[in-house]
């Protein structure tokens, strides 16, 4: 049953990583420059999951395939051009590149990550309850 706790922990870690990516996207929704002040907008982050990596110390391949891990964190370099001819960073046509981020979508995704985190937490609580129940067999 310790494996089940590790699996739920891997789920919580994965969802927290996902939530951090979405909160970073929301925070940088209007970041249209890089560290050097060039008009290179913030690249939207997206977290991709894959099964496996949850049950540390698992002896079988089936056991090692349980749980979830962050397979990759992708970056979306597409941008939204906005017409701001008065902006000093505007191009010759008066457009400034902004990150391709819709804050409403990011908020909904963040809520989804939160709910998934809570589901993993509930699974961990159930596992802990089973462990406590099993310990009562001998004490």
């Amino acid at each position: 049953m310790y494996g089940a706790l590790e699996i739920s922990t891997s789920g919580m870690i994965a969802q927290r990583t996902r939530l951090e990516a979405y909160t970073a996207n929301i925070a940088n929704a209007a970041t249209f420059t890089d560290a050097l002040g060039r008009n290179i907008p913030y690249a939207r982050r997206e977290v991709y999951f894959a099964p496996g990596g949850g049950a540390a110390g698992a002896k079988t391949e089936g056991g090692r395939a349980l749980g979830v891990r962050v397979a990759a964190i992708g970056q979306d370099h597409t941008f939204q051009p906005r017409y701001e001819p008065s902006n000093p960073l505007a191009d010759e046509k008066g457009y400034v590149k902004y990150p391709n981020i819709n804050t409403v979508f990011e908020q909904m995704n963040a809520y989804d990550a939160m709910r998934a985190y809570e589901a993993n937490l509930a699974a961990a609580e159930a596992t802990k309850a089973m462990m406590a129940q099993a310990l009562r067999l001998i004490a």
Partner: protein
Amino acid sequence: MRIGDLSNDGAMPALEAMVRFAGGRQRLIAHNISNISTPNFQQVDADPAEFQQSLGRAVDRRRKSGTAGSGLSIENRAGTGVRQNADGSLTLDALAKKPSRNILFHDRNNRGIEELMSDQAENLAAFRVASDLLRSRHDLLRMAIGERV
């Protein structure tokens, strides 16, 4: 009567098998919950109904063979997802779950959080019942050994 015979007597082996099964199934349910956002993920589970039937057959076999003081021998049938190891412990194979009634999302994951939570609650309840009954059997043994009636 040896201690081994005492602990393998009556319903205790079946209760122990039930506790092991529920503990193993909890891992699979936790795996499904942790992969609720994973694209192309197919949920896995061990069928409790199949396990109950295997357990029932094992109890019947033991009763007919007259070896009441020995452990249960659960048959390793293909498709049940449960295998009994040489030491009596159970290994649950992660079998693909029957397709749920839920829609298939755009990431080809047919996640159903309500179904998962319901499976978890059902599994936890089964574990609690089996472990409570097992504990009461242990208490009876302890009382008998301690000659306290």
